[in-house]
């Protein structure tokens, strides 16, 4: 029988308490338990970045964190950052430049990009490419994504 622990976290501003199996990773918890299916599972190895979310203000791989480890934490997903409009400018730039095709990598990509944009620093294309170097995209070839992020960063 799976050991479960009572776990409380804030997800997109809402307090959530659930009995969570110890072995369930955070993205599975968000998707299965809370129906927040915007964070995607691409490898469960931490390599592809499709599961990138924010915990306590920092981006993390949701598949490499146990949900029980998020006890007492503040979790933000793509849905939350969309509704709060934090990603509005970046999403608009992505849309205008078609920096997404199938959309599977997109939530993780936006999270990773926003992490750089939030610093307020200017960044070169090489630095932008380095920031998203852990987010696998198979559709776009990355260039439009770099263009969109560059547009938002450099104004």
């Amino acid at each position, binding site marked *: 029988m799976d050991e479960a622990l009572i776990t409380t976290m804030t997800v997109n501003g809402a307090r959530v308490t659930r009995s969570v199996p110890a072995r369930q990773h955070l993205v599975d918890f968000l*998707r299965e338990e809370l129906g927040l299916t*915007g964070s995607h599972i*691409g490898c469960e190895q931490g390599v592809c970045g499709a599961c990138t979310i924010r915990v306590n203000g920092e981006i993390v791989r949701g598949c490499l964190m146990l949900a029980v480890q998020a006890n007492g934490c503040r979790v933000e997903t793509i*849905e939350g950052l*969309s509704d709060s409009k934090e990603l509005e400018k970046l999403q608009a730039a992505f849309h205008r430049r078609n920096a*997404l095709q199938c*959309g599977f990598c997109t939530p993780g990509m936006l999270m990773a990009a926003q992490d750089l944009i939030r610093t307020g620093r200017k960044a070169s294309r090489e630095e932008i490419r380095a920031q998203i170097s852990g987010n696998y995209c198979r559709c776009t*070839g*990355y*260039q439009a994504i770099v263009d969109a992020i560059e547009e938002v960063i450099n104004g």
Partner: protein
Amino acid sequence: MGKAELPLHAPGTQVDKGYIGESVPRPNAQRLLQGRGAFTDDLRFPRLAHVAFFRSPYAHAKIKKLELKNALRSPGVIGIFDGRAVAEYCKPWVGVLAHLKGIKSPPQHAVAIERACWQGEACAAVVAESRTQAEDAVQLIEAEWEELPVVVDMEASLRGDVVIHEELKDNVCFKREHDTGGVDEAFAGADVVVEDTFHFGRHTGVCPEGRAILADYNAAEHSLTVYHATQAPHMMQDIFSRHLGIPEANVRVIARDLGGSYGIKVHVYADEMATAALSVMLRRPVKFVADRLESFVSDIHAREHRAKVRLAVSKEGQILAFDLDDLTAIGPYSVYPRTSGIEGNQVVNLTGGPYRHQKYKARMHVVFTNKNLCCQYRAVGHPIAVALTEGIVDLAAQKLGMDPAEFRRKNLIPDDAYPYTFPSGIKFEKLSHHKALDLLLKIMDYQKLREEQEALRARSVFRGIGLAAMIEVTNPSPAFYGVGGARISAQDGATLRLEPTGMVTVMCGVTEQGQGTEGIFAQIAASAVGVSIEKVKVITGDTGVTPYGGGTWASRGAGIGGEAVLLAGRALRSNMLDVAACILKVEKAELDIENNQIINKLTREPKLPLEELGRIAYFRPDTLPVDFQSELTVTRHYTPRQYGFTFTNGIQASLAEVDPDTGFVRLLKHWCVEDAGTVINPMLVDEQIRGGVVQGIGAALYEECLYGPDGQLLNGNMADYLVPMSGEMPDIVCAHIETPTLQSQLGAKGVGEAGTAGAPGAVMNAVNDALAPLGARVTRMPFTPERILQALKKV
């Protein structure tokens, strides 16, 4: 970059470009940006069960016994089923087609029954309340195996020391020979003969979203609804119907959002068929999503070739003849229903494609091995054919001391030579090789790059420029599959419906995986009808809703689906004008539709808003003449008929720098000039090309499925199998030429695969151009640092 002019076929026809040629952002991208898409794994159903598969750890072994008792006791298990149990609900299939003469393959079952023939083949299915519980139970299955000899190497397979399927007598799935005649004479009389052998590493699609299927059988109705991450819902509808014994119209296949496909998701997979069969058997919805480890051993692989090519050339640099011997290794079965013979067949068809020689001889064998199954993956065959062609062409140019661009210029089919039949039998309607070459050299500033290269060589910095000219198969007619007996539709249909409020709903049999199908259909429909684009809603990927169609493959969406949308749009426009004429009591010829209004054609004055036309037509037809019936839902179909395939042309260039100490390749820049006929949305076309180029770069430098001598996949995970990531990719410059096809009013050819077709050859040529002063040459993809260091004789 030219804007599109829709071809005029009737004199005096109004050309209404509308949104055609505009880089309109895709309406359906908004939900994806917010994580509010609906991928198959996102869907929730009552009593949903999950399946995980017990997969063979051996590449070739008899299944002596499956001991399920411990697994059956595992928490959450609903049932565990072996191949025989699943076979009672699902008929096996054979991946052969009549027009590939002599192709052979044994029947394949949804779950292996007596024998596993590749590491990763499903040998039992565990259905449980959750995927986690299913995986727990899989670990508790005990199996007794009798290992059988394993065939891994393609040359050994061809020799037939060990025959995988004894009843087939050898390991040859398919072979083809082609000979125009006169080839030996051409080689004998040639001033220069060059020869090389190219190896292409087996690789795979690595779709961000794993393969996913959710099958929902309704026992009361004997009906099956399948939410399937597939590119071809109608094809799957037919297959589920025939193999599960459910009447065709009782099967509905719905493709919601797909997380990448690139051809990987257009095939029939045994584990997906098993999932559907289990839903029927258990009378409840069952879901299967391939996790990443499973994907590597079960998603189709492709492109494992050994190609030996010879070129006969005159001393003036004229290509006289091509001679090709291609050997390709697939898995133990030919994949259904498109067969695993097509990729090799395409290599024979396409080798030498851009050039105007007349003599060509080819021999090609497709052989079975005990590695994962292989089938069509984006650009099918083209990457091989283009790379070996462009590689041997560069070698000839080098031998003659000619600039590679000039050598190509001497040999590309002239722009005024069309229509043209190529020595392999394929027919070109109209291509623009020379125009493309000129444009490429201009946008890359070829001369300047050559001068820079020269200067840097003097400082021991080794840069290379690689060119790759190409032709590409698009908009296929039934010649591709239909003529062979496959129930794969080359025609397509679109229904356009005017809604009462003046919106237009478009339903089309072509599907969306992110390339922008729905976006361009909205552009075409809006242009054809006369509404603004935000008034258009597009629905694809539902066999219960759209006209019967083929889905997405072989770059057919824009050219074939788009034409159906255009034809239906024009017909709807005409029908709307009929209604307007009745309402306004004027002659139809006086009216037109523009910007959501019925207008006077001459004065352009708005006369009636479309929402008013809709209100009257749908809610107040009593106010219209008694013998008039408005028809505001229109369906049109389209099949390309004149040409078996509508060929496009393009040319790519890669600028690379090789570090001779480490063997590392740095890609500095990439260019692609592409002629895909009418460009509906330049931004989407550019992005398709870029994505395709990066996939091709993956093949050239990074990606290979590595197998051990016992048929074990050694690098089947995301850390060890190297896919291109952003840090190493160059910027890619795209330019378009538009030579519309006259087979349709839209004039659009296909473009989705062009990037992938040409990039490996361009990168290879760039690497070899960089290595040339060092006396090194590489011909085995992917070009890892080790292979480059070996060529440099440093290791």
